[in-house]
């Protein structure tokens, strides 16, 4: 009896353990909110959005829904899916090579990709992000493109924004064709501004103006807030405040955290002030994403990346009541800083059809298709001088606001584009920072001490990277 019960206990426990080693399959779940995936098209924050319709996507494995002779293409943004599909359809028409486009949510995308990489089964063609691109390139998981580029008449890397090209270059070799780039701008609710008798945000606004106006737009009964900024909204949120004030998140050599830098702390104190006086409770922001709070008419302003335009365009309320303006600048430095990032189209090093993969990459990077991506309003394209086409993709909003920050100067302030801070394993310290800032958001008087502890945590994480 005794041995029997011990044995059963052992076996019962064994069932738990099994979860570790069976990689991807055990971990994935059946459904996800598309909304949350959209929110983080290029931002890596937490899953936030709710209250929107959800689409069920199969998360368990890469199961080609089309024919087996199709190239597998994997992306993470449902907002971009229709446009990308159109570009892929044209590709199939031209070349006869079939493609099978699949969309995963941001979180499961990376879980899936890592498991697939470990098992040697990466999709043929996929999006890559600066957060982890170094790791994928260093481990030889992506198809090296140099020879193809040398022979190509379509692709000349000097035609793309060099910052984006650099993200997908490792040890002098190119692994990705720049897909797009993104900047940040300030969205505002015209109806709420009108009701309060305030003038709309413009190029003269500083972060202090944003604070003052947001405070006026915040109603004491909690029915309306001036601004929203969740602790996980770094790229489209507080990073911009930090860099415009002259602070940093990461040292220039990418070896240490700069959250303990006095200027950075000063910027985060301002962020804390904005959060405390003009934003919904952190509990609310954690349940409902910044974008959804804005779309539902709960908040008057939010800073959002250019990748959100397709979502806002298709939202009736936003289309009717809202518009977008250039980001505020920092009075102390007379600088306006927008975080900028860009995705790359990459192919698997172990694909059975590298040549077909390249044909597709070449197609996606070609001037015509980059222009088409911009015209369709999918995203701004990485191909130089295609952005005007993007700005005209809708007349609902003043999309020029996203392009203004790419010029030298707007109004009184100098503009700066800052590449989204990244290291070898960005996700690890970024997630830790997002979680740590929750307590600073809850009690903003702790901002300084939280910044300092985040810096420590981040330094430990960076020192453990295998780069």
């Amino acid at each position: 009896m005794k041995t029997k019960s011990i044995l059963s206990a052992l076996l019962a426990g064994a069932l738990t353990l099994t979860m570790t080693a069976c990689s991807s399959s055990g971990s994935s779940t059946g459904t996800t909110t598309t909304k949350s995936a959209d929110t983080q098209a290029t931002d890596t924050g937490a899953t936030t959005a709710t209250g929107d319709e959800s689409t069920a996507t199969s998360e368990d494995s890469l199961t080609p829904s089309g024919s087996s002779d199709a190239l597998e293409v994997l992306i993470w943004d449902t907002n971009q899916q229709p446009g990308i599909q159109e570009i892929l359809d044209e590709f199939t028409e031209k070349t006869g090579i079939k493609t099978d486009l699949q969309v995963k949510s941001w979180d499961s995308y990376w879980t899936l990709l890592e498991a697939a990489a470990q098992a040697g089964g990466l999709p043929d063609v996929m999006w890559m992000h600066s957060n982890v691109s170094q790791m994928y390139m260093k481990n030889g998981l992506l198809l090296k493109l140099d020879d193809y580029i040398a022979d190509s008449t379509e692709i000349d890397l000097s035609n793309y924004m060099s910052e984006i090209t650099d993200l997908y270059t490792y040890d002098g070799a190119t692994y990705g064709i720049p897909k797009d780039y993104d900047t940040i701008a300030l969205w505002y609710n015209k109806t709420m501004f009108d009701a309060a008798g305030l003038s709309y945000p413009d190029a003269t606004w500083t972060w202090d103006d944003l604070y003052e106006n947001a405070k006026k737009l915040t109603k004491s009964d909690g029915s309306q807030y001036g601004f929203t900024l969740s602790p996980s909204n770094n790229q489209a949120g507080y990073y911009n405040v930090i860099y415009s004030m002259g602070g940093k998140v990461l040292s220039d050599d990418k070896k240490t955290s700069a959250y303990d830098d006095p200027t950075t702390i000063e910027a985060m104190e301002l962020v804390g002030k904005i959060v405390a006086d003009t934003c919904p409770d952190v509990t609310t922001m954690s349940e409902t994403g910044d974008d959804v709070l804005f779309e539902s008419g709960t908040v008057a302003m939010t800073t959002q990346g250019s990748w959100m335009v397709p979502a806002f365009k298709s939202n009736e309320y936003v289309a009717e009541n809202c518009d977008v303006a250039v980001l505020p600048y920092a009075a102390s430095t007379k600088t306006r800083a927008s975080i900028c990032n860009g995705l790359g189209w990459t192919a698997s090093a172990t694909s059975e059809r590298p040549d077909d993969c390249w044909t597709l990459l070449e197609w996606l990077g070609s001037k015509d298709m980059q222009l088409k991506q911009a015209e369709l309003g999918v995203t701004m394209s990485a191909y130089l001088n295609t952005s005007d086409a993007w700005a005209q993709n809708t007349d609902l909003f003043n999309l020029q606001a996203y392009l203004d920050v790419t010029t030298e100067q707007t109004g009184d302030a100098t503009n700066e584009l800052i590449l989204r801070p990244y290291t070898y394993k960005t996700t690890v310290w970024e997630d830790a920072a997002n979680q740590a800032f929750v307590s600073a958001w809850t009690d903003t008087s702790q901002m300084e001490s939280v910044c300092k502890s985040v810096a420590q945590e981040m330094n430990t994480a960076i020192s453990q990277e295998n780069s």
Partner: protein
Amino acid sequence: MMNKKNVAISGNHRRPGLTYWEKSQNLWGWLFIFPTMLGLVILNIWPMLQSFYQTFFRTGDFGRGNIYIGGQNYIQLLKDSEVWQALWNTLKLTLLQVPVSIAIALVLAVLLNRKMRGRAVYRAIFFLPMIAAPAAVAMVWKWLYNSQFGLLNHLFHTKIEWISNPAIAWISIAVIGIWSSIGYNMVLFLAGLQDIPKDYYEAGAIDGATGPAAFFRITLPLLSPMIFFVLVTSVISGLQVFDSIYMIMSKSNPALPKTQTIVYLFYQYSFVNGNKGYGSTIVILLLAVIMLITALQMKLQKKWVFYN
């Protein structure tokens, strides 16, 4: 559960001097459990050993270039307050979820064991949550709980932060667990109830035991083996809660540190941060806890479980 029993019992069959018939029985026995054994070894036992092996390494990117670091992961584990908090969260969740779920399921099973109109319909309704995918269930509850737009706050005219207030979020999560497991437990109890011969109740009725007395003196003791089975399996699955946390709690949720479970933490380390070594170490801790609790239950069962 079946295969575990088979494995456990099979050890007792080896006696010297087997007859031909016994040998043949033995062979066929093994042959019949072979497919299950094979699955168990390939899908459970081998990965388990691998997980254990991984705990002594700092795993490299994509599982390449693992570095042997001895017991460092375990030392880190002992000092990691996040892990112990997660373990406490998990235990708290289980302690609330299991008894409540069993109590409700038991009452429902007894009520639905009588002859009544629409009995099958009720049984089907209560069993329904079991059929829905856990992730879909979590998604729907997430919307119900939303403090801004959720149905719950709308119905009750409250402004309760069901899933982001650290003090109540774990209870909200437990409610989902209770809701999803009632149906399954109820069906098991119904099966148990139908095994109880009517004679006992008739005899009891003659001696004046009806209603509550019959329930506590006849039903409960005779159902105790089934209750024990449900208890053991519920505790184990309670300690492995993952779906609801993963689907409902965002990473910037202030309640996350007070609600995240061990398996969720393990997932974060192993699959989000790519630190499989430490992730495996966390799950070894869970293994130890589950074994301990299960062994304890096995021992304690003698005090309250009646086998005829």
